[in-house]
């Protein structure tokens, strides 16, 4: 029994069957990659996991509880954090504030009226955020307004935000999309360190096979909304069905 259990999920947009009977089981503290050609339904599946979309049928169980019908912030409070394809950060706030907010969310829940405390007197939160920034090597940039960061730094900041919540499940939607090779390698290294700690489950959607094969313990190949195969990376590489799905789009 995995920490994330997706069973028989269907999602239809008008005449388009985006997801057809998807089953997925992610084991605790592993890295599970979902790959597939464009339009395979990877992002739709992810959106169903975080409450952005509600599947037409099927069930999504996380840590023994159903996530269906819950709002995104409730699902996050259950322990699922998400990194977006284009970094979603608080662009008008400083790097430090960006990391403090998830720390507050983790400690105080989805709403708390702490209007008369001083932000910088919350020593516990401040220390936690400082530690997190050191971990991702962004401490020198703590007072920079997030919108002025480079793309790679924005991605790192977003990951720091997600990690500072100590999520049980980290969902990564193409974390290296549009990145330069060096940034991609940095991101892989960062993810490897996170993985090495062994206290977080990761579910990653990625086009870059280099990233997938350096991180994933298991891979699910999705095509036209249905899982084709699920196996360990070594067996996926030469799988004929996978080749067929990609039609030589990528070197698998």
């Amino acid at each position, binding site marked *: 029994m995995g920490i994330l259990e997706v069973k028989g999920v269907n999602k239809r947009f008008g005449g388009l069957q985006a997801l057809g009977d998807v089953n997925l089981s992610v084991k605790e503290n592993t890295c599970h990659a979902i790959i597939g050609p464009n339009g395979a339904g990877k992002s739709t599946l992810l959106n169903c996991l*975080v409450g952005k979309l509600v599947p037409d049928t099927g069930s999504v169980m996380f840590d023994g509880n159903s996530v269906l019908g819950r*709002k*995104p*912030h409730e699902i*996050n*409070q259950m322990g699922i*954090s*998400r990194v*977006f394809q284009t970094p*979603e*950060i*608080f*662009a*008008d*706030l400083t790097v430090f*504030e960006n990391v*403090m*907010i*998830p720390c*507050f*969310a*983790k400690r*105080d*829940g*989805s*709403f*708390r*009226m*702490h*209007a*008369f*405390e*001083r*932000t*910088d*007197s*919350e*020593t516990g*939160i*401040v220390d936690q955020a400082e530690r997190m920034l050191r971990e991702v090597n962004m*401490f*020198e940039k*703590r*007072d920079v307004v997030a919108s002025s960061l480079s793309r790679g730094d924005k991605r790192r900041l977003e990951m720091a*935000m997600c990690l500072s*919540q100590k999520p049980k499940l980290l969902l990564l939607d193409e974390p290296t999309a549009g990145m330069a090779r060096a940034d991609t390698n940095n991101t892989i290294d960062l993810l490897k360190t996170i993985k090495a700690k062994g206290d977080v489950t990761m579910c990653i959607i990625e086009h870059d096979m280099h990233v997938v094969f350096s991180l994933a313990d298991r891979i699910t190949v999705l095509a036209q909304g249905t899982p084709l195969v699920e196996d360990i990376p070594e067996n996926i590489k030469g799988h004929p069905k996978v080749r067929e799905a990609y039609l030589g789009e990528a070197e698998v």
Partner: protein
Amino acid sequence: MTDQTQHTAAGATTNRESRSTGGFLGLKGRDVTLMIVVLILTMAAPIILNPFPQGSSLAQFNAGYPDLMQRFVIFGILAIGFNILFGLTGYLSFGHAAFLGVGSYSTVWMFKLLNYNVLPGLVLAVIVAALFSLLIGYISLRRSGIYFSILTLAFAQMSFALAYSVLTPITNGETGLQVYTSDPQWLRAAGSPDMPHLFGITMRATETVRVGGWSFDFNFGYYFCAVVMVLAFYMAIRIFRSPFGMMLRAVKSNQQRMNYTGLNPRPYTLAAFVISGMYAGLAGGLMASMDPLAGAERMQWTASGEIVLMTILGGAGTLIGPVLGAGLIKYFENIFSKINDGVLHQWFAFMPDGIENALVTIVHPFVGKGWHLTLGLMFMLIVCFLPGGLVEGGKRIATVFRRDRKSGPVEQQAAQKRNAE
């Protein structure tokens, strides 16, 4: 350990130090300075606003009379509260005049039912405004952006229409709500003043001090409002610097991220809406305390628009900006509107007749009844060239000066630092 020193050099020192020094009433660094400046300005306003001797030709630009000074601080409170919603969360409410009106009505009702002491009235004004804004906010905040603005506008206009006609038994309709001798005033003590007062001192009590050609009015009503505004300003600073304030800025910045960070933006925005509604109710209550009359026109949409104008003119999202904006608009409304053709002729009298008349004709549309035109032009210029409002203007001027004066010393200091290391 080397790690540590490296980080402090990168600018973390300020935070570390300020955390240990404690500060004053929970304020630190620049906030203390700001608070002191506001305190001095409000307390010395009767003097500062009367810079011209009585009887001089410039005396008409004096703003230090009680009526206007009261309006400065009351609208200051209104703008401070509005800024907590608009400046922090970015939700533009076009209905805040409704809360102002509700506050005024509540206070006058307290005068009618209890007595002329302003405290019960102000307390009720804040409570009623809070409940009213909770209701309107709960519904309006289901939408954001322009739809939110339209919803608040609709609610405010509905309130205006209700106050103006349907709810006449409560609001006294067109005439406006006022206190009559036939009103019960159950708690009225014999011999207590026949006008709004605070434990016996009437709001109209004024001490006039004459120094040479100058005359300064120290009015109790003004000082009462000023103290309330200073408190309101203090609360606003605390909110701005609190985790709650940070969450409100997060709402403005990225609601999607907020949702996926486990935070529910709705109660945060609703809380901000109610807080700013309470500020508006308080301002309305003070208005009725200065002049025990509440009319429906106070709730009209133009009044709501004026609040928006004040905040943007001064600088939305800054602490002091809205207060400056409120002061500027009220100054224009009361001083510029008093300049008529006679005054203009007097000004340009030194010119040849033809030019004098021409100048008067040119300036005429911008003053007197045309003060709105000047205000509009100013608003246009500020939005185009100073999107951060008056505060941004001030900052730009300050940086220019600083660069001129400090460019030498700063480089020297940097050199010294380098040598020391």
